[in-house]
């Protein structure tokens, strides 16, 4: 009897030792907060998501209010910069992308960009932040304002779009930088015209498509020379032997 109660007590203590730190860890992670900028955006508007208190360098913020989940990262790198900051009260201007560590225990600020769901009805929606390997439910919410009535002026697009950062552009050596060789060839089928416009940054690509390259020309000349030599040799032999 005594041994069993001892065993039970031991198991109980062990269980408490295991559960307590996990519970403490869960409570510690509840310091995650999320804010949406600008406040009061309308359906279809672009918004920036800011998360404080995550101990990871990446994550995601999901909500029924978002058209697509916002990917969170430490630096707001590579954005087209079209999110307008209108709230001057926060520390929005300073230190974006420079690793704010204003809170003592080394937690970071993560940011991401998304678009409010164009079909969402106005109201308040919970946001779930996933970082550090698990979800943090409802560390904040987003409010969607009434959608503005569409203006009647039908401005039409008149200019070519800017829709690429060049990360997969063909390197200056003319070799393919990414996969999809056929796509690269097709995309660069317009190179001779673009080169003449004088805006082309490299010349080797257009030179290749203008005609056979040097190795090809050399091989062609060699083959032509061989053909000529064979013909000459055969004709001389024919003369000598008198028959084919």
């Amino acid at each position, binding site marked *: 009897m005594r041994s069993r109660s001892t065993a039970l007590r031991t198991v109980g203590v062990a269980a408490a030792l295991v559960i307590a730190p996990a519970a403490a860890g869960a409570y510690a992670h509840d310091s995650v907060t999320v804010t949406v900028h600008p406040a009061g955006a309308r359906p279809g508007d672009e918004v920036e998501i800011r998360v404080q208190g995550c101990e990871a360098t990446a994550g995601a913020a999901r909500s029924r209010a978002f058209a697509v989940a916002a990917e969170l990262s430490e630096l707001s790198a*590579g954005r087209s910069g079209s999110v307008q900051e209108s709230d001057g009260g926060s520390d929005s201007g300073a230190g974006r992308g420079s690793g704010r560590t204003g809170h003592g225990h080394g937690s970071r600020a993560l940011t*991401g960009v998304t678009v409010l769901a164009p079909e969402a009805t106005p109201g308040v929606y919970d946001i779930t932040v996933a970082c550090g390997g698990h979800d943090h439910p409802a560390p904040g919410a987003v409010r969607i304002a009434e959608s503005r009535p569409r203006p009647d002026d039908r401005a039409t697009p008149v200019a070519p779009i800017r829709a690429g950062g060049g990360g997969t552009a063909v390197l200056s050596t003319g070799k393919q930088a990414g996969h999809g060789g056929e796509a690269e060839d097709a995309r660069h089928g317009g190179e001779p015209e673009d080169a003449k416009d004088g805006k082309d*940054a490299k010349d080797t690509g257009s030179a290749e498509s203008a005609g056979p390259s040097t190795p090809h020309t050399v091989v062609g000349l060699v083959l032509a020379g061989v053909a000529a030599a064979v013909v000459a040799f055969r004709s001389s032999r024919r003369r000598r032997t008198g028959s084919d």
Partner: protein
Amino acid sequence: MSGEGSQGSGRLVTGVAWAVLLLGLWLWGRGTAGGPGASSAPTTGDVAAVGRPPGVPLPPAHAPVEPARPDRVDIPSLGVAAAVVVPRGLDAAGAIDPPPYSMARTVGWYGSGTQPGARGASLLVGHVDTETRPAVFYGLSAARPGEKVRVTRTDGSVAEFTIDDVQVFGRDRFDARKAYGPRRAGRAELRLITCGGTFDRAAGSYTANVVVSAYLTKMSRATPVSPG
């Protein structure tokens, strides 16, 4: 080589030499032509569209339907699956503003313009790449006439378009009416637009737009999806 006895072997040598020569010429010709895809690459600028390759029948157009906003787009032949479509406006230069690079898998549509399935041209834009990696319309220039584009609309219907033209428009002589306007009156048309040409590192942008044109050929209902 001398004497009558060597005539047979001489002929053999000559035959082999010719065969080697012809083989070499054939390989050289293939090498110069630049491999597959050269004949069906999209044409540039203001040249009239090359159109479909021989043997690709294009289906008849479906009459335009009631307008509804797009929600998702699928282009199976290019590996674009259930890409979210969000409304976008124009930037200061008068060009449709694509979604930011951090939403590289999202497609934008010109929200003040024609809705997909309605009469006219509905405009979808997406990045070909970000500063570091491919984006949702990376493979767009490999699209070919006859391939399908499916737009799932907010009313639950699926508008299926058939591609009938792929062209590259240089930025300098950009024909906005041809790129953005309807090609044939009375049809419901779709444009898929991304960047192409070469990347001008000094300007930080590509030198051309790839414009894929498609027209409505089928309507159906979407299979119900659990709400996300």
